[in-house]
């Protein structure tokens, strides 16, 4: 009887927590859309420039969000591009090759790295830039490349951890299947173990993409500027949506500017949604490729 009541209470509590979380998410997104949907227009993105010309990078957009969208997009692409190979390789090393003692030390290091506040990583990137500027080449300034590298450091622990955990949680029987048929360790990892854990690894990548898209502290110190236009190269400054939102939120002068901030927030969410969609599609494609093509 008593046990039953506790069961019910626990169930009730669990339901409440779930509803609270989902509710808050709906509340935040709903608030954003309600406040900002009026601001969404082609003009918000492209201002007075023709969209086609802007999309072909023929004409710079002034006063619109387009440069910030492009900046954010390339920033995410570059950061994930740096972090993914490194993170996957480290995760594979920890799960499959590292002896226990090294595994313990490295895991601790990556956990600490995961806990470092992003502003500290930003400061670190900034310090490195200053150091390089003074002692190496005075042409080195905060730029897209340095921002992307710093962000890569920020998200590296997520990718490492998810890869490691995904590989380690595979059942022993699956692990032994390919070796029993004559596969080398490397073949086993790439033909069986990684494909089997791709779904878990993708969720780590999605988390990393989200983090790259939203982080402001790192890029603020390492390359983002309020007005830069489309970045000309990875060595130039760039605009980014989260910084734009932060900037508007703290320094807006009138209602019209504030509305642009809301619009930018919605667009940032949309970009994330598109990227999540793409990573999901890549996951499905990879799974199908390793699975059923006959």
């Amino acid at each position: 009887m008593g046990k039953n009541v506790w069961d019910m209470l626990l169930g009730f509590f669990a339901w409440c927590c779930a509803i609270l979380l989902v509710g808050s998410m709906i509340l935040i997104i709903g608030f954003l859309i309600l406040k900002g949907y009026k601001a969404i227009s082609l003009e918000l993105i492209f201002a007075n420039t023709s969209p086609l010309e802007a999309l072909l990078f023929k004409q710079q957009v002034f006063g619109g969000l387009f440069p910030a969208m492009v900046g954010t997009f390339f920033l995410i692409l570059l950061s994930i591009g740096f972090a993914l190979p490194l993170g996957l390789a480290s995760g594979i090393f920890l799960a499959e090759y590292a002896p226990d003692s090294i595994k313990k030390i490295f895991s601790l290091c990556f956990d600490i790295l995961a806990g470092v506040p992003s502003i500290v990583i930003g400061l670190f990137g900034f310090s490195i830039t200053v150091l390089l500027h003074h002692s190496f080449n005075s042409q080195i300034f905060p730029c897209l490349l340095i921002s992307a590298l710093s962000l890569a450091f920020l998200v590296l622990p997520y990718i490492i951890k998810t890869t490691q955990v995904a590989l380690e949680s595979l059942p022993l029987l699956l692990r032994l299947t390919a070796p029993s048929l004559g596969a080398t360790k490397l073949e086993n990892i790439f033909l069986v173990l990684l494909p089997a854990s791709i779904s878990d690894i993708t969720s780590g990548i999605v988390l990393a993409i989200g983090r790259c898209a939203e982080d402001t502290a790192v890029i603020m110190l390492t390359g983002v500027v309020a007005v830069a236009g489309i970045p000309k190269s990875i060595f130039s400054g760039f605009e980014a949506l989260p910084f734009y939102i932060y900037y508007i939120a703290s320094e807006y002068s009138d209602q019209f500017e504030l509305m642009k901030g809301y619009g930018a927030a919605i667009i940032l969410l949309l970009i994330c949604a598109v990227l999540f969609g793409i990573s999901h599609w890549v996951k499905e494609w990879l799974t199908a490729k390793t699975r059923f093509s006959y």
Partner: protein
Amino acid sequence: MGKKQIKIQIKKLGFYYKNQQIFENICIEFEKKSITSISGPSGQGKSSFLMALNRLWESIEDAKVKGTILMDFGNGFEDIYHKNYSVTELRQRVGMVFQVPNPLPMSIYKNIEFPLKLRGEKNKTIIAEKVEQALTESFLWDEVKDRLSSDAGLLSGGQQQRLCIARALVLEPQVLLLDEPTSSLDETSARVIEDLLVQLKKKCTIILVSHHIDQVDRIADNKLVLSDRRLEQK
């Protein structure tokens, strides 16, 4: 009948897991083209014994083997633990089937094709021929020939286990190790696999770990019991 031919010679074999001795000092010989059964209580190291024969224990952390295993693959007895002996080649010659069917998360065809691809076979006609042959030998061809591209995980337990046997057979191994291959199957599926093993005896030396006394009595030529760290004739 001629003189008995020996396929495998084991001398002073010991197996250790996390510094704990599982068995020690096992000396035994296995005859060519016969079925030898190993039974005995759980936890005595029957699976470990099989894994010593294809060196699969090397993929398991904290496991260790001592002793000598010699096998004759046509060039006289060779030490499979010799430092120059290729473990990949060994595992292509010594096939293994596990207690629980373990098809890879791929199509039926790809499962059988997998070991051939590992070996470097690229000719699609040869692959197709060998896949069909292996599936036929394992009594599965007729049941799956129309759905080779469907997920192997959708087959029944008995079919999955025969698929795993076919996957081991496609490399034409000379020794086949089976670790309680029918323990997760119903009586009918188990009988099909027993018939299959009797057929395979013509080509392979089979070592079968089994708990079922009836099964052992039905198909084994030679019966061994592993208990108290010793492997002895029943």
